[in-house]
C-alpha cells in the first residue's frame, strides 16, 4: 500500500463524510425530500472495500448507500441532483436516495428493501461466472439484513456454485431502533434483540465459505480483507462473508428521535471516528502533513459545493418523464 493510496483513502472517506453532512443539512432545510439514511461513521468500509475492486466490477447497495456509490466512483453532482429530484440525477429523479443506481459503473442500485439487494448481487455473480468476464460483485448490507431469508438463501446458492461475490456486512449494531447483540450482552432494557451467535461472520461456516471479522472503522484493515476475498472470488474459489464492526452516528433515518441509544455509546464510537483516527495515524507515521490535510479538506469542500450548485441549477423533470421506462423497448 503506497503513501498515495493511503492519502486517497483519507480523502475519499472525507468526501463521503462531507457529502452526508451536506445531505443532513439540506434535508433539514427541506431541500431534499423523502427519506435519507446517512452513512456517517461507516466511511472506512465503503472506501476500503471499493479500493479492492475495479471500475467495471459490480456493487449492490442498501438504503444507506450514498457512501458505497461515491466510493465506487459516482459523480457527487449527479447524486445530489437525484436527491434534489432533478432531471440530471442518476435516475432522472425517479429513484431518490433509496434507489440510487449507476449501472454504467457497475452500481446495481441502492435498495429500499432490507436484504433486497442480496439476491440481485448473487445474480450478478451468476452473470459474471457465465459470461466469464472476470468480474466480481461486492454486496453490501447491514446486520439487520442478515435476519432476512434472502441473506441465507443467497449465501447458500453462492457457496454451492462458487459465485464471485463478496458479502460485506456493515454491522452497525442496530436494526431499525433495536440493538442486535450477542445473547446476554444486551443492556438496552427492552430495546434489544438477543442473537444466539456471537458474530454474524460465524454464519459463514453454515454455508461453507470463509467468514471474517474486521474493524469496520479501519480503512486499511477493510481493504486487506476485501482484497483477499476479491482475489479468491476472481480465481473462481467462491464467495466470502466479511463482517465489518462499525457504528452509525446518526439515527436509522434523518429526523428520527434518538431515544433508543445510550448517548455514552454514541460518544464512545465517535471517538473511534474512522476519519480522524486515520488522519492521526498518517500524521504519526509521517505519511501526511497538517498542510496536506487542510488542502484535502479544501478540495473536498470545492467538490461538494460544485456538486450542490450543479444540482440546484438543474431543472426538474418534464411531466412526460413520468411514464417513460415503465417497460423496456
Amino acid at each position: 500500500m503506497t503513501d498515495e493510496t493511503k492519502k486517497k483513502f483519507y480523502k475519499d472517506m472525507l468526501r463521503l463524510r462531507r457529502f452526508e453532512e451536506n445531505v443532513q443539512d439540506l434535508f433539514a432545510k427541506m431541500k431534499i425530500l423523502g427519506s435519507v439514511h446517512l452513512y456517517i461513521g461507516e466511511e472506512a468500509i465503503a472506501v476500503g472495500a471499493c479500493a479492492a475492486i475495479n471500475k467495471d466490477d459490480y456493487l449492490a447497495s442498501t438504503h444507506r448507500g450514498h457512501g458505497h456509490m461515491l466510493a465506487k466512483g459516482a459523480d457527487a453532482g449527479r447524486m445530489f441532483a437525484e436527491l434534489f429530484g432533478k432531471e440530471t440525477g442518476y435516475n432522472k429523479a425517479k429513484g431518490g436516495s433509496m434507489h440510487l443506481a449507476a449501472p454504467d459503473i457497475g452500481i446495481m442500485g441502492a435498495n429500499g428493501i432490507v436484504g433486497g439487494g442480496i439476491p440481485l448481487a448473487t445474480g450478478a455473480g451468476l452473470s459474471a461466472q457465465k459470461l466469464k468476464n472476470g468480474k466480481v460483485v461486492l454486496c453490501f448490507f447491514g446486520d439487520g439484513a442478515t435476519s432476512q431469508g434472502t441473506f441465507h438463501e443467497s449465501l447458500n446458492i453462492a457457496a454451492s456454485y462458487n459465485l464471485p461475490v463478496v458479502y460485506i456486512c456493515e454491522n452497525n449494531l442496530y436494526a431499525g431502533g433495536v440493538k442486535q447483540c450477542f445473547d446476554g450482552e444486551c443492556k438496552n432494557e427492552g430495546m434489544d434483540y438477543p442473537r444466539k451467535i456471537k458474530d454474524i461472520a460465524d454464519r459463514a461456516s453454515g454455508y461453507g465459505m470463509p467468514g471474517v471479522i474486521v474493524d469496520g472503522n479501519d480503512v486499511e484493515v477493510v481493504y486487506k480483507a476485501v482484497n483477499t476475498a476479491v482475489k479468491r472470488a476472481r480465481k473462481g474459489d467462491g464467495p466470502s462473508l466479511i463482517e465489518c464492526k462499525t457504528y452509525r452516528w446518526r439515527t436509522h433515518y434523518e429526523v428520527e428521535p434518538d431515544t433508543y441509544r445510550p448517548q455514552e455509546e454514541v460518544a464512545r464510537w465517535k471517538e473511534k471516528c474512522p476519519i480522524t483516527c486515520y488522519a492521526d495515524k498518517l500524521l504519526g507515521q509521517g505519511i501526511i502533513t497538517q498542510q496536506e490535510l487542510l488542502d484535502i479538506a479544501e478540495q473536498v469542500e470545492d467538490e461538494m459545493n460544485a456538486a450542490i450548485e450543479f444540482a440546484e441549477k438543474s431543472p426538474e423533470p418534464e411531466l412526460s418523464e413520468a411514464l417513460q421506462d415503465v417497460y423496456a423497448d
Partner: protein
Amino acid sequence: MSKKSMSAAIAMAQREEMIRDKTVYILGLDVGAYGGAFGCTRGLWKEFGKERVMDMPIAEAGYVGAAVGSAATGMRPIAELQFSDWITIASDMLVNQAANMRYTFGGSLSVPMVLRAPVGGYLSAASQHSHMFESWFAFVPGLKVVMPATPADAKGLLKSAIRDNGPVIFFEHKKLYDITGEVPDDPEYLVPLGKARIARTGKDVTIATYSYMVNFALEAAEKLAADGIDVEVIDLRTIKPMDTDTIIESVKKTNRLCCLQETWLTCSVASQISAVVAEQAFDYLDAPIKRIGALDAPNPFSAKLETYILPSVEKIIQEIKSMF
C-alpha cells in the same frame, strides 16, 4: 408442423432460444437431469449442460432474485417455479425489484427475464398447489403476464417472452401440459405479447377468457350452438398488456360479454375486462356483463367440492343462457 404436448412445446421454445442466444439459461428446482416437475426442461440439461440448466435449492426468493440480478447484468435467465402458488415467496423480487428497476433507475438498465410457473386447479391439489395469482402481477406496472392455452401459442409466446427486454411472468396451466396440438417447427415462430386470438368466431355473445378456460369455453360454445346461441371465444393469451381492442371489437359485434376465468372474481382479470368494456362499449351491450369464476373459497381437496367451487362447462352454458 408437428404434434406436440404443451410441455414439449415449452421445452422446444427454450431449446431454440438457448441455441439462438448464449445468454439464455434456465434455473429452478428439478430443471436439470430430472427434466422439470412437468417435463418442460426435458433433454435440455443433457444438451446444454449444468451451466445453462441449473438446479437450485428450494429457495424461491433466492433464486428468482438471482435471476433478476443476472438479467440486470447481461443474461436472459428463465426461472422456473415448480408450482405458481410459491410465487408469494419470490414476490418481493418480482414486485419490488424486477418490476421497478428500469423505471426507478431512470431507464439505465433493463431486466430481461422470464419467470415460468405452473398454475391451476381441477387436480385435487388443494390450497397450496392450485391457485392462480395472475391478477396480482397484472396489477403491477413493469411486469407482463402471459398465459397460453395451446401448445403452439405456448411456443410462440414463450419465445417472445424470452426475447422481451423486461420481466415477463409466464403462467402455464397444469391441465394443459399433456394436451397436444400442432406446433410450428420454425425457430422464428413468434406470437407477439399483447395480441389476443379469436379461438372461435360467433355473433351472439363474446366469452373473453384465457389459459385452461379457453377449452371450457369452446366446449360450451359447441353445446350452445345446438341451442342456437353462436358464441365468440376470445383467448386473451396475454393478461398484461391486454388486447382490449379485440374484446371491444367483438362486443360491438355480439353485444354481449361474458368474462370467464378459473380463479376468484374480486379485483380480477374479469373485473378489469368488465370495467374497460363498461367504459368503452357500454352502449353496445344488450345485457349486463356476466362474470364467471371460482367461488370465493380456497381450492378444496375434495374433488366434489373443488368441482363445485370452480367453473364447469355446464355452469358456463347455464350462465350464457341466462344472458338471453
